[in-house]
């Protein structure tokens, strides 16, 4: 028993046989930052906590839209002329086929994001750049579609302040669009870092964490597409 204790003590002492002044404390700190009691990195846990709180934000916006989507109001065009009747709602002017195409594009971007994460975990830099660029491009196509849709609505007389229904609609879909835009910017930053060689294999978790954000934006659109566009 005593021998075992002595051996353990010797082993512990042996762990500190490196001269004190040669220990790289800065590097140790980085390594210690990844050794959490849960086994999950702080960055990943932080992203999941953020996504959990985002559920409340989008829950509020979706609830507001549901409450006000059928509320009547006078609809005017940008010149102030009344163009709509009381029961003329923005939901009756949705171009479902166009929005469906946008939904397919966003779903496809989730798949390409998965490929980007796989490439990062395999340390395959060329494929990582390809899929990051493709994902950002698909996101940009989605945003372009949303800008086109908003422009078409404004031309038809549905502005942000036309009535509470349009305000709720533009706030909900606009907030989602802002999230997609932020996601595109983060993907482009990753792409730039990779091109500069500053996204090594050891940082592949950064790609995974930004991928989580991107997939969340996709699942929010799944809910918005069903509740706002498809349920009449």
């Amino acid at each position: 028993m005593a021998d075992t204790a002595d051996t353990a003590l010797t082993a512990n002492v042996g762990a500190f046989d490196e001269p004190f002044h040669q220990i790289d404390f800065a590097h140790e700190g980085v390594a210690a930052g990844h050794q959490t009691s849960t086994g999950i990195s702080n960055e990943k846990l932080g992203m999941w906590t953020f996504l959990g709180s985002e559920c409340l934000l989008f829950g509020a916006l979706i609830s507001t839209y549901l409450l006000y989507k059928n509320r009547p109001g006078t609809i005017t065009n940008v010149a102030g002329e009344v163009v709509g009747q009381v029961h003329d709602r923005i939901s009756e002017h949705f171009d479902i086929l166009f929005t469906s195409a946008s939904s397919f594009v966003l779903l496809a971007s989730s798949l390409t994001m998965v490929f980007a994460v796989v490439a990062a975990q395999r340390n395959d830099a060329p494929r990582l750049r390809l899929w990051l660029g493709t994902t950002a491009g698909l996101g940009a196509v989605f945003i372009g579609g949303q800008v086109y849709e908003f422009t078409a609505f404004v031309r038809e007389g549905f502005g942000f302040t036309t009535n509470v229904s349009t305000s709720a609609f533009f706030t909900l879909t606009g907030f989602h669009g802002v999230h997609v835009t932020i996601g595109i910017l983060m993907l482009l930053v990753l792409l730039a870092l990779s091109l500069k060689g500053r996204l090594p294999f050891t940082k592949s978790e950064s790609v995974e964490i930004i991928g989580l954000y991107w997939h969340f934006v996709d699942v929010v659109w799944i809910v918005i597409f069903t509740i706002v566009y498809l349920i009449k």
Partner: protein
Amino acid sequence: MTTIAETETPADVHPEDLHHDTGRSWQVAAALFVLTGLEVSTYFWPHGWHRVTHVTLIVMMVLKFAAVAAFFMHLKFDHTMLRRLFVFGIILAMVVFLGVLSAMTFWVNSGTTDFNNAPHERPIPPPPTRAPTS
């Protein structure tokens, strides 16, 4: 001094250790595309089927949400704490906002043709007429 991450090279990573399986991702994506196509098709179903349509849409939405969260976001295979964290956020949001919708009488049929429309304005009754005095 070296860190664990630095000593681990790509050669040490086995395919089964990778978080995402590419083949499975294709299958999930195909299922998502099919479900989305079905969702879009419900828009052209007869108006009289709205109850069936709404239930179908909600079920497909939940399936798509779960598929992306489980496989693309890797919740099915990741740490249980992450799953609980995200599900807690979803349940909290649902409880809070279903409560808000109930408080705002969202579920009460206003009596108009369209669900949740503002109730019709009742006509103002004419003032009571007085009997002519002789």
